[in-house]
């Protein structure tokens, strides 16, 4: 979807602000958000593509106003509600109980009877063997499709309808555009594609620069 998340090439965000000696987490709740995301994925509640698309569905103004882990929290919560793991009402009530003094709410927390495992890395691997041989070879000229789909995609706006060159074959990968929408993994070949900055940015391009993207085969056409 052409959402606010698709930031490549946008103007107006100013300089990159850095924080000296930044800690891994700024507050314990950020780690809790990471743990809940991992548990939900490892427990098979949602996949990484559904998770990314859930964040993309935030209202644009809210997306920009939120911190990174607030966006994660929003993305996790939306999916847990949509998949019926928690209800909006119980989450609202429980949130109230933590907000309202005196804080007796922690006494309602019971240890899980059967805690889910974290999910091994192998369970979460995205490599899959596609059913067809690779359509493109390294060195071949390609052009990306000029499409504006409303669903999830990993072809950024700035690289649509652009000419590039296949720089690498990256193997077969789960296809996010279907996997984010419950339409299966439908694995495809993925290619590292090299784009000249002038092709992407025209006269505004900086000299002697290239952008590389990893793109699924169906995003590409022979040039």
């Amino acid at each position, binding site marked *: 979807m052409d959402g606010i998340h698709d930031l490549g090439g946008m103007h107006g965000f100013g300089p990159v602000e850095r924080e000296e000696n930044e800690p891994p987490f700024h*507050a314990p709740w950020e780690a809790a958000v990471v743990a809940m995301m991992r548990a939900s994925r490892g427990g098979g509640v949602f996949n990484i593509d559904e998770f990314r698309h859930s*964040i993309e569905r935030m209202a644009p103004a809210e997306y920009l106003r939120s911190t990174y882990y607030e966006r994660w929290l929003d993305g996790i919560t939306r999916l847990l509600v949509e998949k019926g793991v928690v209800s909006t009402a119980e989450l609202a009530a429980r949130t109230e*109980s933590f*907000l309202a003094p005196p804080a007796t709410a922690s006494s309602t927390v019971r240890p899980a009877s059967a805690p*889910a495992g974290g999910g091994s890395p192998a369970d979460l691997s*995205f490599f899959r063997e596609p059913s067809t041989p690779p359509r493109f070879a390294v060195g071949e000229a390609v052009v990306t499709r000029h499409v504006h789909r409303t669903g999830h995609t*990993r072809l950024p706006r700035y690289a649509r309808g652009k000419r590039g060159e296949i720089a690498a074959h990256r193997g077969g990968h789960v296809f996010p555009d279907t996997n984010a929408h419950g339409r299966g993994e439908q694995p495809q070949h993925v290619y590292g594609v090299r784009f000249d900055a002038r092709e992407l*940015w025209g006269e505004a391009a900086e000299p002697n620069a*290239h*952008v590389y993207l990893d793109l699924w085969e169906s995003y590409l056409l022979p040039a």
Partner: protein
Amino acid sequence: MGKNHPNVDEYVVSRVRALESLLLEKGLLAPDAVDRVISRYESSTGPMLGARAVARAWRDAAYRRRLLGESAAALGDLGMKYDRLVVVENTPAVHNMVVCTLCSCYPWDVMGLPPTWYKTPAYRSRAVSEPRTVLAEFGVTIPAEREVRVWDSSAELRYMVLPLKPAGADTLDEEALARHVTREALIGVAEVRLPTA
């Protein structure tokens, strides 16, 4: 009550605690899951892992070739299990930098948690369209004759930069050398410099 709550932080913290307690009750979240995440990213996983691979590659040409060509095996030598890393090498002719314009993809297992600036709209929007300007803000000036390559992590592969070997590197052992390889250098927005003796 909702996101218009006067104290947004308090609201977010309460909402996280609420969701955490519900997932615990439903058996989806293990009781020690949060502690494990904190311990992992505050002590055992961080940029020092990627830094070690870089330091070894600078000192060992065969290891460097493996890190560039078969990163999973090369990382395995250092006890890491990670099969999705692409290592891109800086040379006198090429400077590499890494971004994820669509979200904030980053090799957590090899470089730890991404810094906040990496996840900002400012970096994500500008790294692909004006990389030289962004690099200059980070204090890295790349002459026009040196190519800049920006790696936008749009799939599940993750990128790490093998920086240029700094002058004086041969006087240090792997461990000492690794201490000078910063997270920023692994992302490609800094060079590695050793203090002059």
